[in-house]
């Protein structure tokens, strides 16, 4: 375990989130973030706006994912939310804007004070996405505890 592992929270690991659109998923996740005191009331709008303008879908070697995040002023304290949806959700890819279908969302709550730490987190995270063994474990994790342990063991 490292200082990075503090950014994870079992309450922010969600499985089988239902919904058919990206907006719908964002809304539900925002509610959880809000009720756990992580975000400002402006977060959902900011998140959607940023995703419209600068999409965050990324097709990694072993898994298509999305990394939604809003500007720091909408975040109270840093977090990473690990969210799996029930259905495939269409998002756009970072940089090229092409469509991508994914069930795997990692919401990043970035605040300026801990930016360096979160950059380290994202670097480690992208490294893990290229690790087939990790991705297989990620796919087979079936409950909050095993998912949390998986991240604790790798950060």
């Amino acid at each position, binding site marked *: 375990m490292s200082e990075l592992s503090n950014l994870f929270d079992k309450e922010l690991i969600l499985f089988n989130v239902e919904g058919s659109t990206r907006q719908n998923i964002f809304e539900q996740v925002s509610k959880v973030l809000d009720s756990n005191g992580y975000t400002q009331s402006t977060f959902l709008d900011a998140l959607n706006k940023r995703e419209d303008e600068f999409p*965050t879908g990324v097709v990694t070697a072993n898994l298509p994912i999305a990394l939604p995040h809003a500007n720091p002023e909408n975040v109270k304290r840093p977090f990473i939310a690990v969210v799996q949806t029930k259905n495939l959700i269409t998002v756009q890819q970072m940089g090229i804007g092409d469509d991508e279908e994914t069930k795997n969302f990692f919401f990043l709550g970035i605040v300026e004070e801990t930016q360096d730490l979160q950059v380290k987190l994202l670097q480690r995270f992208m490294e893990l996405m290229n690790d087939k063994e990790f991705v297989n474990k990620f796919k087979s994790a079936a409950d909050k505890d095993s998912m949390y342990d998986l991240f604790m063991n790798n950060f």
Partner: protein
Amino acid sequence: MTKVVVACGSGVATSETVVGKVKSFLEDHKITGVEVEATDFKQLANVLKNYDVYVWLAKPTPEIMDICEQEGIYDVNGVNVLTGAMGGDEYLPLVNALYSLKNQ
């Protein structure tokens, strides 16, 4: 000094991550004389002409592409650098750009 700029939507998450990866790559390959910085997309049009290489994480607008063309700035796909999914080949466009700049 060759100057590289990495730009994403807000300049806080993915661009800083790519800056870190590019710096490590340059260090690992003992490539010196290259400065790497992050910026956000809003600033980009104003500062782009000060750089030699532009690593993009958000789709470049026509305005940005015009600046690149007029100023002879090399543009490089940064999403591949972020994912690292090409097993190292993601750095080739950057290396080619640095090599071309060196021989100008």
